[in-house]
């Protein structure tokens, strides 16, 4: 791991959590998706997905639009501009940590 702890501190912990990271990755590659699509793609339970989405929404990373389509509740999701920027920053910082990783010494 990197010798500089400051670089590790730059890693966004909210995104770094594996479940939230997969949600962020999935939403990053699309313009928008609905709750059912994420549920299918990520193979999560509705409760689990919902709780992680709430945390990402609180941070302002995910925009959640709840509406009714043909009298059925529908949840549309998309990354906000802040969320996209945060994810790009996270990607850059994580890459930096591994770039600094020393080569494995030969035995």
């Amino acid at each position, binding site marked *: 791991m990197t010798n500089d702890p400051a670089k590790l501190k730059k890693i966004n912990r909210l995104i770094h959590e594996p479940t939230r*990271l997969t949600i962020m*990755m*999935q939403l*990053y*590659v*699309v*313009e*928008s*998706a*609905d*709750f*059912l*699509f*994420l*549920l*299918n*793609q990520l193979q999560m339970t*509705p409760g689990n*997905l*919902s709780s992680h*989405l709430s945390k990402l929404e609180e941070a302002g990373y995910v925009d959640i639009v*709840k509406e009714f*389509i043909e009298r*059925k*509740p*529908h*949840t*549309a999701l998309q990354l906000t501009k802040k969320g996209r920027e945060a994810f790009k920053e996270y*990607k850059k910082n*994580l*890459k930096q940590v591994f770039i600094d990783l020393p080569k494995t010494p030969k035995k």
Partner: protein
Amino acid sequence: MNNTNLKDIEKRTYISYHQDGLLDIFIGTYILLFGIGILLQTITDFSTWFVIPAIFPALMVPIWMSAKKKITIPRIGYVKMGNKGSNKIMAVFIGTAVAGLGMFMLVSFGSNLDWAVAIKDQIISNSMIIIGIAGITICSIFAYSTGLKRLYAYGLITFIIFITGYFVSIPFAYFLLTIGTIITISGFILLWQFIKKHPLIDGGIVSDK
């Protein structure tokens, strides 16, 4: 995590949204109608084949969207892909259209130029090989850019059928009918598998509340 992984996720997303076989059914039907149109023209001596391919895309889009809404979205949800993916597909569409138009212009209006006549003769005498190569190339580009691997198989089938057509004297319409039937049947099989794999949950889970 790197860009390759994100590209993989993007491709997986695209594949999962098109695993329902609807795209195959519509493309197959389009080729099939093209073949039927040409066949009708030879039988009835009426130029219906211009009408069928011209009308079908206009009807296809609303039917396809409605089928997606009724079959796919209630089962796996809705996703709107970013512009990057659709731009790539649009570039392939435009490239193919420009190449096709160029070839059409050359064959239709190139009779005054010596070099054009020579190329035109080559195109006409080797049309089956050209269509076969064009088919496999276009399908491969689409397969590579979208991740839909079955398009490689469609390209290969098209190539084999048209190369066979170069050596065997069978009316052109029959080649289109064969390819259209294969792709349409494949689409229906995919649709059947999709419906079996993703049964409709009563009411569906479309919301977290």
